[in-house]
């Protein structure tokens, strides 16, 4: 398992790293076989429970950060959202077009510490459950990744 690789904060003019969800034939097979494992765990590079993600302070209050696990096109993109002392984790893949919610590295569209917008086509997701309450995929949800917060350290939790 490759350890967490925090995506660096963007520099002016920098374009975000490529690579999105593993929406290849293997994923289709996974879906068809209906494994009991949560979908996010079946993705390439999915971090194991207990894997350290970051210090809480790396995700300022009301913001979002992305952390990469693995390398290349099949990198696992973990989205971490924070409001106050709470953090939530999701796979950074919009259910509308299966693209990341950001188009530039760590540049996310946020609203009132409680909503995150997909930059591509404006789907609106709630922090607390990843539910899309408005936009082209309203009613769908981001794939939740359980997080644990202990002693100001964020790590992968248990489903």
């Amino acid at each position: 398992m490759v350890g967490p690789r925090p995506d660096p904060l963007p520099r002016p003019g920098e374009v975000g790293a490529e690579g999105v969800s593993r929406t290849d034939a293997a994923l289709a097979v996974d879906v068809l076989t209906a494994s009991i494992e949560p979908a996010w765990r079946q993705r390439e590079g999915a971090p194991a429970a207990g894997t350290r993600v970051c210090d809480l302070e790396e995700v300022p209050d009301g913001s979002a950060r992305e952390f990469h696990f693995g390398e290349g096109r099949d990198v696992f993109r973990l989205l971490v959202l924070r409001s106050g002392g709470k953090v939530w984790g999701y796979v950074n893949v919009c259910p509308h077009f299966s693209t990341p919610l950001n188009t530039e590295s760590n540049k996310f569209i946020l609203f009132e510490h409680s909503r995150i917008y997909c930059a591509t086509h404006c789907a609106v997701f709630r922090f607390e459950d990843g539910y899309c309450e408005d936009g082209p995929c309203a009613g769908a949800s981001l794939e939740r990744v359980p997080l644990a917060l202990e002693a100001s350290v964020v790590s992968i939790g248990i489903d």
Partner: protein
Amino acid sequence: MAMLEPNVATAPAKTSPPVKASAPDPRTHYRKFELGQFLFERDEYFVTITWPAKGARQQHCMSADAFLRALMRDVAWGFFYGWVNFDGMFGSRNLYGRVEFFAGRYNEAYHKAGLSYVEQFDSPIAMETCKAMLRDWCNAGFDPFAAPAETGATWAGVKNGDNIAAIERFRVATKRMPGIPGDSPLRDELPVNRAFADVAQDEPEIKAEPGFEGKLHAFNLFKYLSRSDVTWNPSVTSVCRESLFCPTTEEYILPIIHGNDRVEWFIQLSDEIDWEVADKETGKPRARVLMKPGDVAAMPADIRHQGFATKRSMLLVWENARMDLPKLYESGKLKPYPVEF
């Protein structure tokens, strides 16, 4: 110009940016809406857009049904890819996180005369303003997704109720392909459109080799499209990394003139669409393409296009969802067309 105050009466019951809207007009009962320096107003027949240029308020008028059909696509597509020209004067450009509204900017004569105007907004407030206009300006019975023969002239006249169900209809999201367990449904519950009564409705039979049982999937795309209840509104039917198949059914006129920020591939699956293709920047005509069943076209990244279909037809739009494409085309690192002859 008098400034409008945020008006919660036009906003949905959720957390969202405040929209600037007026009280209902005492005669037409429609509200006015403000987005930056743009002011939007509708009456019985027309939507009037005004903006500042050359020390005065410039104005542009569109038929209300044309404006609402275009606005519906802009909202449903989340500002889509690149430019959504409502007509030859007004439109939006998706900057992915921000959105630019323009008036006359891509109309060569207006732009050269100094009468054009462009203003950028955060996408959330722009989107909420567009949705609020749709909620207030679509009368009962008017479905901006429907073909004119299906929805009639209910858009005209003073305010007469609303049609929230049509403009906020549920749109399915597909993770991989419709019909896969856990993915989007196959539209079995929707009726076959009147134009596709002759389309076979049986699903393919899958005979897998040993070891592949339950691991293959296929569905009847023609049947799926024959049950589409909207026009000019692509939906995803397969996702393979950044490669997206977005087929759609088309009747009457594409309500917007789409300015590409990437190459789009069109594959005509049934009937015909007549495409007008023009320069993205100036609007000068570049080509006319009549696509018949089986025809394939790559719409370049530097054009705008609008389609016309007398009979409802099936079109497969093949999109490349790579996030860095607009910058690659703008910088010249990629040519605007995929093939050099």
